């Protein structure tokens, strides 16, 4: 599944004194089987952008295309099953008496058989390392556990594109890394993931492409090393360490991920490069 935003503008509270133009003509494809990281400062339009991917927000002007066809021609329910959106702090929407029932809610509404719903719930909780929580009340879980359950609720619909808006905010670093592992696993299985994050370090670890938003416009989009090494204000910690070394030691290259950065720096210190 390929989604394309075509010159999308979005204006909140249009025609009132509180009018805010959140997106100012954004064109951006989400390719099949990629992890697309969307970064940008507070209020740059990241959340507004991703809510257009399943037409939860409708563009004020411009179009959203799904495999080349206007997304408005697809039934809303079908579109939202194929493009699963996980909001910021999704645990706020947990409601059922048990974790299992909460996760089963959305797939059940897709009209699947009880057997299939049960299978998906089990599989999804397993993927998120939350099987042991199935019988618990979602309200008695810790913040990290709730987050996993809320994400499982969307994943259980088996979307072709999973959109995560700040999925790791408030999670401890170890849980954060587990979740990034889930993102990688989904991509391996052919699901595209769009991940909004203010944390450049985690985007650096998983993204195949990075889009930088600024003030409602696409400031840069491309491979992580292209984007991060050419926009000084948008650089993860790894790039901030390496960039000043590139003058005296150009051979260090343009590593982005932690492991490749560590290898490059070791090489530099040991005089192997």
């Amino acid at each position: 599944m390929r989604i394309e935003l075509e010159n999308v503008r979005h204006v909140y509270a249009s025609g009132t004194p509180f009018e805010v133009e959140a997106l100012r003509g954004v064109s951006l494809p989400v390719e099949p089987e990629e992890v697309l990281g969307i970064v940008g400062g507070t209020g740059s339009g990241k959340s507004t952008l991703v809510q257009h991917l399943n037409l939860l927000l409708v563009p004020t002007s411009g179009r959203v295309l799904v495999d080349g066809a206007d997304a408005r021609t697809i039934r809303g329910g079908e579109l939202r099953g194929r493009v699963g959106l996980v909001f910021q702090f999704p645990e706020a929407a947990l409601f059922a008496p048990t974790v299992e029932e909460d996760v089963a809610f959305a797939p059940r509404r897709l009209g699947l058989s009880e057997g299939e719903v049960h299978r998906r719930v089990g599989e999804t909780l397993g993927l998120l390392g939350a099987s042991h929580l199935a019988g618990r009340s979602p309200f008695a879980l810790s913040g990290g556990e709730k987050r996993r359950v809320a994400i499982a609720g969307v994943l259980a619909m088996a979307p072709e594109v999973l959109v995560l808006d700040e999925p790791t905010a408030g999670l401890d670093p170890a849980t954060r890394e587990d979740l990034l592992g889930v993102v990688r696993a989904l991509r391996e299985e052919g699901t595209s993931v769009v991940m909004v994050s203010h944390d450049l370090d985690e985007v650096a670890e998983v993204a195949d492409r990075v889009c930088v938003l600024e003030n409602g416009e696409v400031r840069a989009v491309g491979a992580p090393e292209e984007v991060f090494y050419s926009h000084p204000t948008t650089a993860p910690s790894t790039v901030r360490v390496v960039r000043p070394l590139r003058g005296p030691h150009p051979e260090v290259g343009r590593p982005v991920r932690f492991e490749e950065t560590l290898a490059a720096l070791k090489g530099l210190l040991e005089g192997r490069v």
Partner: protein
Amino acid sequence: MNNRNHEGARHGGPPVVSCENVSFSYLDSGRPALAEISLEVRAGEYVGVVGPNGGGKSTLLRLMNGLLRADSGDVRVAGFDPAAEPFEVRKRVGMLFQNPENGLVAPFVEDDIAFGLENVGVSREEMRERVRKAVRAVGLDGYEQREPHTLSGGEKQRVALAGLLALDPEVLLLDEPTSMLDAAGRRGVLERLEALRGARTVVHVTHDLDERLDADRVLVLGAGRLVADVSPERLVSDPDLLRDNRLVLPTALRLAAELGLGPAQLRTPEDLAEAIVEKSGARAR
């Protein structure tokens, strides 16, 4: 328990927050959220609280401002028992919640920031002045007339923090106050908090160890127990303590540790770059 990991308060002041043998369990949970916690925070201290999700950090803050009542043990804040006299405590203690959505109440940003002040009886002029200062402190100039629901997550978080700064309580209880902010936004907020050092008492729950490198000390909560009470330098240079509590160093410090470049002396990625330049230069000579 290992005494090496319990250094305690390092400077003066009378205790403002204290817990003695405090335990608490949520109703349908099998294990206590907090078990036999004893700690003291002194006036003017800046204390970081770290630990894994589910470790008990947020529960501890909720006990301190009286949202929860301990099953056993004593909690004292500014001389009061928060569960028995929550209003006395909340006059002196301000709390910032993890999810900023939970705190916003008013139709416009500036009303929201003024909300706490309206309940403590300061004059109109003073209120306006304090709101203005708080707005500037968190970098929200121009947002005064915006409606909170049109703001992004990070902007809401700043509004909530501005409300707390305007109220200017003696004790600030902060639950992940920068979790939705980008690097620049975080720096701004941390500088503002740093300016309170010594004048106010701050208890700051965070997952980002780099944020709390400036704390006077760091409490580590794991599975409901106070596992350590140490200086930030100790914490970041103790791989066992970090690993046992699912704590992960920020990227630059992790690189520094892997390269054998003493993480305790470094703060930022730029510091590490400098250390590498020095070391590789020395090798060349």
